[in-house]
């Protein structure tokens, strides 16, 4: 078979992610049906500030986990089991409200050589419009480490949808035309080649 013909571009990247065969730049998606449990957090935050782009960030002291139950953290770990990562440990968490016309600039969650992953859980659903299709969507630019090509992903804001990604993945939020809420958790992890 002709090599160019066999090459499948982005499809290979998503195949690698789906099957947990990629240690860098990966993106994984799942659904968490109990997402609504996080909504009361927005009513009585211990700390908050306005981020660049206008989103309101709220968090407990030291970005600590705000519950006794670790059910959600365990759910995330189970969701990414296919990658066979080692030492997956909670790092910090926060929750954000994006008022109308606010956004989040492109950024990564890299931390001086320590592997980090970030998990974004959408807490409400943003309407989809053909006139303003970018409205509040999460945009991710990552890399297929096998080919070196950039891979672009556009993620709709649907309540309960969860996106977990390697800390090296660039991501941001397009300006939203309606209020948008998310809950974010970061973990550290190791990759062990046996």
């Amino acid at each position, binding site marked *: 078979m002709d*090599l*160019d013909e*066999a*090459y*499948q571009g982005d499809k*290979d990247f998503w*195949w*690698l992610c789906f099957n947990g*065969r990629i*240690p*860098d730049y990966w993106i994984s998606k799942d659904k968490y049906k109990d997402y609504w449990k996080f909504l009361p957090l927005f009513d009585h935050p211990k700390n908050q500030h306005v981020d*660049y782009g206008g989103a309101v960030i709220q968090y407990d002291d030291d970005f600590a986990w705000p519950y006794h139950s670790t059910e959600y953290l365990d759910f995330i770990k189970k969701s990414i089991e296919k*990658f*066979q*990562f*080692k030492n997956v440990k909670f790092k910090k968490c926060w929750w954000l409200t994006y008022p109308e*016309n606010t*956004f989040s*600039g*492109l950024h990564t969650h890299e931390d001086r050589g320590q592997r980090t992953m970030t998990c974004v859980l959408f807490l409400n659903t943003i309407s989809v419009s053909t006139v*303003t*299709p*970018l409205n509040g969507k999460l*945009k991710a*630019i*990552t*890399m297929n*480490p*096998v*080919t*070196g*090509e*950039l891979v*672009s992903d556009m993620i709709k804001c649907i309540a309960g949808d969860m996106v977990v990604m390697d800390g*090296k993945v*660039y991501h941001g939020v*397009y*300006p939203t035309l309606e209020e948008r809420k998310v809950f974010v958790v970061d973990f550290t992890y190791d*990759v*062990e*080649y*046996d």
Partner: protein
Amino acid sequence: MSGPEFPTPDQFLGGIPTMFEPSSQQLQAIDTWVVDDLYYPGYKKFLKLFNNSSERHVDWGNGTLYYKRGMEYPTDIDPKKEYLEFIKFQLQNVPIRVKEFQKAWGVKYPPGAYSGLHCHQPGRQLTSVLFLDTPKPSVAYPLAGCLTTLQPTPESTINYLTHKPIEGKMVIMDGKVYHGSYPALEDRHVFVVDFEYESVI
């Protein structure tokens, strides 16, 4: 990564017949580049495009595109195509041969307008962005109106750059480089020209 399926790093990506060999070709094709900090002194003439264009439409991020029919080069503004020659001259040290002009257009970003991240594919294309005005600096929103570029590097990293809009400055990039612009705080204008090119490596 551990486990019986991946006994060694070399075998980590084994058993993927549709990808492994083609990837070696593709890897060689990742020769992306960004040339920035260029200055074109004749930039002001292209502001006429926003009055003289025959076509226009509003893009997804609410910027308005202005262009001639078929996105032809505006020869009424630059009859000798000096700007196209300027672009080619600036790329003489990049290992490419600039081929056919593809299209040209202007974009006006009103306050709050932005450009979503995109690249210019398929094939070998290059795109040039000429800033036509200088927005006032903002302490609260320092990235307002900035062009961003994300470029894959041979070291398997992503090179992320922001380019402040300053009138007359321009950025030229390979079509595989993702780019977009942050929401503007005041009206800003750019002039964009795309070419085909071929690698000379």
